């Protein structure tokens, strides 16, 4: 009548099978996860993947990047997330971590980020880095939705807010803003076709996937607080993470950062 009726414990076989499957999957997923975890700001989404590939080719070691908004990654690190290195888009967060004793030292500046106006191909807005047309479009109703990263925890969102304040659109534009969880999601919103554009990271606008879908122009650097991006080894970082930290300071890694539009500090 049912599987439980069989004398020699039919249910045991099913359970054993599930246990075996579960163990097997455990082993498989553990093998995949051995590389040290690196918490990285979303604007590094493509640059860091490329640097990691080069690092693997040159040293036969690799890291596993986890991308997010610097603010969110910062709180995860405070709550004990198992990261070994933190690449922040905002150095203030690194200093705060250092003060709470979570880091090896105060880290190193590795890049300066830039903000761009990113428009989808069919946007009714004119491509204008000084945002004259954005202000006009806000007035004449061509602008209904505009994407930025969430200023509450994403450095690029905070800079975008400063820029919108400077051109006099803040706070009235807030009702038309779509906030990305991080700058990468904001860029995805900006080119999705559901918005007329957004203020996002230059490094993302330069990725091949976005180059096809959108047009961009740089926002003047002096319009917002510089995006001084600092990295820091977290307490207990092992050898591979340390090697990657050193590698990020070599000319071959810096060349990739340069290709993705980052300015390089001389610190």
């Amino acid at each position, binding site marked *: 009548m049912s*599987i439980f009726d069989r004398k020699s414990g039919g249910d045991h076989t099913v359970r054993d099978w599930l246990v075996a499957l*579960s163990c097997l999957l455990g082993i498989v*997923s553990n093998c995949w*996860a051995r590389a040290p*975890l690196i918490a990285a700001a979303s604007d590094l989404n493509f640059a860091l993947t490329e640097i990691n590939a080069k690092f693997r080719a040159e040293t036969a070691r690799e890291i596993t990047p986890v*991308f997010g908004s610097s603010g969110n990654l910062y709180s995860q690190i405070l709550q*004990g*997330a198992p990261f070994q290195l933190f690449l922040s888009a905002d150095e203030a967060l690194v200093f705060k971590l250092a003060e709470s004793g979570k880091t090896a030292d105060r880290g190193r500046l590795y890049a300066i980020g830039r903000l761009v106006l990113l428009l989808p191909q069919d946007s009714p807005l004119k491509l204008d880095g000084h945002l004259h047309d954005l202000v006009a479009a806000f007035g004449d109703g061509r602008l209904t939705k505009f994407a930025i990263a969430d200023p509450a925890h994403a450095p690029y969102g905070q800079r975008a807010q400063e820029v919108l304040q400077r051109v006099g659109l803040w706070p009235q534009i807030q009702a038309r803003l779509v906030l990305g969880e991080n700058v990468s999601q904001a860029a995805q919103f900006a080119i999705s076709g559901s918005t007329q554009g957004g203020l996002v990271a230059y490094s993302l606008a330069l990725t091949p996937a976005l180059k096809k*879908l959108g047009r961009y122009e740089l926002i003047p650097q002096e319009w917002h607080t510089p995006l001084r991006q600092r990295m820091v080894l977290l307490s207990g970082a092992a050898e591979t993470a340390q090697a990657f930290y050193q590698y990020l300071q070599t000319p071959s890694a810096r060349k990739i950062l340069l290709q993705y539009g980052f300015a390089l500090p001389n610190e």
Partner: protein
Amino acid sequence: MDWSAFALSLQLACGTMLILLPIGIWAGRQLAWREFHGKALVEALLALPLVLPPTVLGFYLLVALGGGSVLGRWYAAASGHPLTFSFDGLLVASVIFNLPFAIQPMQRAFEAIAPEVREAALCCGMSTARMLRRIELPLAWPGILSAMVLTFAHTLGEFGVVLMVGGSIPGETRTIAVAIYDRVQSFDMAGAGRMSLLLLLISLVAIAASYAITSHLNHARRHA
């Protein structure tokens, strides 16, 4: 396709099922046949994950499993790493948000067993364990099976709680649902599409199989 995230999701779903199977059978029987003070409250608490926003559940789990809680401190002392952002923490969360999906179908199945059948078995001097194995489980197993299928499918699909309690750590807490979200953020719509399709097919097959088995069984019973 992110196979590591897929394997992790399957592992989480199987683990949750294995833990909830005995819990569900025990709780389902208690709730089906026993009357006690505060039963309505217990049932309401168990049903809560059905209606609570995942963020509310996620928030309380984050507090309950975090370094400030008794459980979090005990786990960190025993294992050397915190419970949040770990697979074990995710498993605990998963068991909790699946409680209604496991218990309710089992409770209904046990409720449907006629009291006379159990009384007759008791009169014959059957032990509780034997009665469970020979009478209750054979009668209730379609309900138990649906409970397990629902638990499995719901674990694969849970997103908000996983993100809040687990973050998105590859090989540890990045489930396939979270990996899809990450892919969309990385402009990889094709990858997100493939993973979504796989998840859709698995959920469909799981639910269809459970319906098919149940209806086949009811059909067989009617003609027995």
